[in-house]
């Protein structure tokens, strides 16, 4: 019988392997699965390719994963924030590879990956550096660039509430990349603020249907990344 609930984050991320591609939800701290990322720091898989909109802040969450030298490459739209210190340092030292992708193209490449669409065309980035070495093609006398799908071995996603089928709802703008990342990973691992009974989510309001979710772990009081950063905390906790 279907029950996707796992008891803790360590169990949830146990099988992430060296060299895996991992999608990580969030737009800044909103929707970032900090506890799952920290479990991955503990777990220690290395040489990961991370797909995420940003590259982490301070020394916690995604920044901690990068600082722990577990990430070989990051695919993202905006790796720079006023409080990002880890990524810039490693990037300048040539210790981490960056594939910079416009934000909407990133979202659509992930959706394509989850939807069995290997490639699509978009106007975004035409006539810019980011379209260099990419294939161009005209439709109706306008030029478009060919963009390829992104898929992942795992997705780490934060949601608001989940049931044991893996149906998810999100909270406000913390939804962001969660739904498309759930679709595009072989194994989708979700941390939910609350696990609720099957049937409690109105079927009209399910955002991510359970078919896209493989594991759910309850984290009832997830960390506020911005608070941890303000307090200059570091993971692993000292």
């Amino acid at each position, binding site marked *: 019988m279907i029950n996707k609930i796992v008891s803790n984050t360590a169990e949830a991320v146990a099988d992430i392997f060296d060299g895996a591609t991992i999608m990580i939800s969030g737009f800044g701290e909103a929707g970032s699965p900090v506890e799952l990322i920290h479990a991955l720091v503990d777990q220690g898989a290395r040489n990961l390719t991370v797909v995420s909109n940003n590259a982490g802040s301070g020394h916690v969450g995604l920044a901690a994963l990068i600082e722990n030298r577990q990430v070989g490459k990051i695919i993202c739209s905006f790796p720079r924030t006023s409080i990002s210190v880890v990524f810039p340092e490693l990037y300048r030292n040539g210790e981490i590879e960056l594939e910079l992708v416009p934000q909407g193209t990133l979202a659509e490449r992930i959706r394509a990956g989850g*939807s069995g669409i290997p490639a699509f065309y978009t106007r975004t980035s035409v006539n810019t550096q980011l379209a260099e070495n990419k294939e161009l093609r005209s439709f109706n006398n306008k030029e478009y660039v060919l963009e390829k799908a992104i898929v992942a071995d795992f997705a780490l996603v934060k949601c608001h509430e989940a049931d044991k089928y893996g*149906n998810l709802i999100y909270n406000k703008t913390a939804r962001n990349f969660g739904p498309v990342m759930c679709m595009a990973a072989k194994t989708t691992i979700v941390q939910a603020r609350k696990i609720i009974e099957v*049937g409690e989510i109105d079927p009209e309001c399910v955002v991510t249907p359970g*078919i896209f979710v493989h594991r759910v772990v309850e984290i009832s009081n997830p960390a506020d990344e911005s608070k941890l950063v303000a307090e200059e905390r570091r993971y692993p906790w000292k």
Partner: protein
Amino acid sequence: MEIKEKLGWSVNEMAQNVARDIQDGAYVNLGIGMPELVAGFIPEGREVIYHTENGLLGMGAVAVPGTEDPELVNAGKKYVTAIPGAAYFHHADSFAMIRGGHIDICVLGAYQVSEEGDLANWSTGVVDAIPAVGGAMDLVAGVETIFVITKHCTKNGDPKIVKKCTYPLTGKNVVSSIYSDLAIIDVIDKRLVVRELAPGVSFEILQQQTGATLHKSKLSE
């Protein structure tokens, strides 16, 4: 003819054979017609979630007369129900589930299946017919495991399992297994391997009713 009609499995037994091969926790799309019977035979202790491509995951039983909702239908436009834990979504999202490989198993009917697992089930190719494809091509292209449930032969006695399909294809190399009234046949490396014979059916009888070369498996020997 007398003998032939008594040979083999009933339609319900065919559906049962398919159901036996659907694992616990599977996400399944059932085609219109005979495939719909499969839901009634899932073995005790297994939980299966049904997807209908018109926008529902967690389809329940057919609606009880008097409770039908014309806005709650399955892909065959039958009035159905939704289980607790169901989700509604739009057509593009629904086919993202299909095309993206998220549905585990799809059970379909067939006009013809070739020995390489090609499926023809959308058009008889008759010139005057109104062409209609629905979601058949999306399902065979997107779902990893395609089970075909079909009578072994047409009403005229022509084999439906053939060397090469003469009807227009729905998809090439897509069928995993065929559940007919006479046998269960797996398509393995572009060969038809007989997994199980219906009671009273010999390999030789089966081969006579089939338009392509069959191979024995350990079990059917």
